[in-house]
């Protein structure tokens, strides 16, 4: 009840490729409280998905979690567990749902078989019991007629139903933590709304903690209690959802919010962030956002800002020198 269920500290996941070092995740720290939903937002290549995979230690070589990174689940240090012990964690204490439900379900197995397998593996129950649990889970995620659905193959389900089946599989072993990596990105808007509702409802009912990764600010705003904004492998800003979206501190968060098209207001032009996301092979020196930042000055080009301020930490020198904020930033490019 007290204390976070998952603590990630100074997580660094580097890819040692032939073309050089790729610092995909570079010193990410956060806590996840029990029953909390933490949203991770960021654009492509910012390291949000690799962060998730690192927590499950599913990063393939040449990717590696660097020493000194800590990932604590309860009182267990995941980075030091053996591979066998880690297998016990995956799908059991922590499970994950992916973006593309078609490719993350095995097409040659029935839905029921796949869910039952996970249950039997982690719970050591028999065939019939596994099947029963699978049917229960399919009912829980809102599939009509779950007993019949058990024997369906993934291709017989529609996209939304497949994502529900994925969720059923992930939740079958009552995980403490659910990692959801862009779970609604491949879905239509109306289906996305259903899945988001489902996730919220299930979380309330089952009391698990959830990390919800998305590039879509609107989705995160809807589902998360707390949000971290990632850019270039680092956390740029962290805070309660309400604060992040109504009072963003970091210029990047601000820019993202302003460049997101809105349904309500008809604007002649959208605000933009100049330039494009840098390549993970060559992060800019100093503050990694400085080449695109409207406020950047010398200090930003040279010194790496830490996460400053307490209640809504922001990795920006403006926290120390707020008078440097320029008009250009206000105008939004």
């Amino acid at each position, binding site marked *: 009840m007290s204390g976070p269920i998952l603590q990630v500290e100074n997580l660094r996941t580097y890819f040692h490729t032939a073309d050089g070092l790729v610092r995909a995740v570079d010193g990410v720290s956060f806590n996840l409280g029990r029953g909390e939903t933490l949203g991770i937002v960021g654009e492509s290549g910012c390291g949000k998905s690799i962060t998730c995979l690192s927590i499950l230690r599913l990063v393939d070589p040449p990717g590696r979690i660097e020493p000194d990174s800590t990932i604590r689940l309860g009182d267990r240090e995941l980075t030091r567990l053996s591979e066998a012990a880690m297998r016990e964690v995956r799908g059991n204490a922590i499970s994950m749902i992916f973006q593309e439900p078609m490719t993350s379900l095995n097409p040659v197995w029935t839905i029921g078989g796949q869910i039952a397998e996970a249950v039997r593996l982690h719970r050591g129950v028999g065939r019939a019991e596994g099947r029963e649990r699978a049917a229960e889970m399919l009912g829980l995620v809102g599939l009509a007629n779950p007993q019949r659905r058990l024997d369906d193959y993934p291709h017989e389900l529609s996209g939304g139903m497949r994502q529900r089946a994925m969720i059923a599989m992930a939740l079958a072993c009552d995980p403490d933590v659910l990692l959801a990596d862009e779970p609604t990105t491949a879905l239509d808007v109306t289906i996305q709304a259903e899945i988001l509702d489902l996730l919220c409802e299930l979380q309330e009912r089952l009391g698990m903690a959830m990390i919800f990764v998305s590039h879509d600010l609107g989705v995160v*705003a809807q589902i998360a209690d707390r949000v971290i904004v990632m850019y270039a492998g680092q956390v740029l800003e962290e805070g309660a959802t309400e604060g992040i979206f109504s009072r963003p501190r970091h210029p990047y968060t601000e820019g993202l919010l302003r460049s997101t098209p809105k349904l309500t207001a008809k604007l002649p032009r959208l605000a933009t962030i100049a330039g494009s996301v840098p390549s993970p092979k060559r992060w800019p020196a100093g503050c990694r956002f400085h080449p695109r930042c409207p406020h950047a000055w010398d200090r930003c080009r040279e010194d790496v800002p830490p996460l400053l301020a307490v209640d809504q930490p922001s990795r920006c020198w403006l926290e120390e020198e707020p008078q440097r904020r320029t008009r250009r930033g206000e105008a939004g490019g």
Partner: protein
Amino acid sequence: MSVPPLVEVSDLVKHFPIRKGVLGRTQGHVRAVDGVSLDIRRGETVALVGESGCGKSTTARLILRLLEPTAGRVIFDGQDTLALDRTGLMRFRRRAQIIFQDPFGSLNPRMTVGAVLREALHVHGIARGEAAARCVAELLDAVGLHADDAGRYPHEFSGGQRQRVGIARALAVEPEFIVADEPVSALDVSVQAQVLNLLADLQQRFRLTYLFITHDLSVVRHLADRVAVMYLGRLVELGDSDSVFGDPLHPYTRALLSAVPVLESEGRGQRIVLSGDVGHAASAPPGCPFHPRCPHPEKDETCRAVVPVLEERGGGAQAACHRI
């Protein structure tokens, strides 16, 4: 109002046969587009909105005659595009262009950006040699790239830059009409805004007419003059942007609007959650295509049996629904 529209689409139909077995016998039809009528006026932006599989991309390809329709007509500037001969079709291709969704798939990886653009210029005899090089530089400049980029290959660009190259290719033949098929769906949010602004700028500069295809309603809010909403091969609502966004008529449009995740907690109404999945065009239900998911409290036998037609509902809005 006496000016005729640039594009007149009437009763456009496209059925794809479903073939099965060794002999490839036709087992039925996917009614991808099932009677779409739409006028696009000069200089305006019409957004064609719908979820996956609703037939919006097929409609776009039919209008550009990249696919042959099963029935219906497309009149472009007074000419029936289906009646065009070879030279007529080439002239049409110069006036109507397309921008694609996937910035990775829409450029030939073996050709430099310059070669891609020169090819477009060459095929239509617009410019050769020195003049072509100058044109390429101008085009790259127009879409916010550098003239030196002509020598680079697509894989050396970021997604947003590639999308700019795709736009430059469409602009190369100096078209009047551009179909933009989900041009920003594959891009990062911060880059999305750049490309949307670029499209708006180019429209002003070259007096372009856009058909903007998207599944994301928020993207077209500030861009579209009119919005057409599609569901399972049919238009269910068509109207001015303000009326569609401000006062949506069709239950589907309402559900779609309410499902868009928004940043502001205020200003959003009750979310209408639809039950069931988007139907498939191969097994579209009889009657109103939307009736199995329709949350309207008064839906009845008529909805299940009779296909509603797109009718004028006042205020420049049209909707296809029995219950309005």
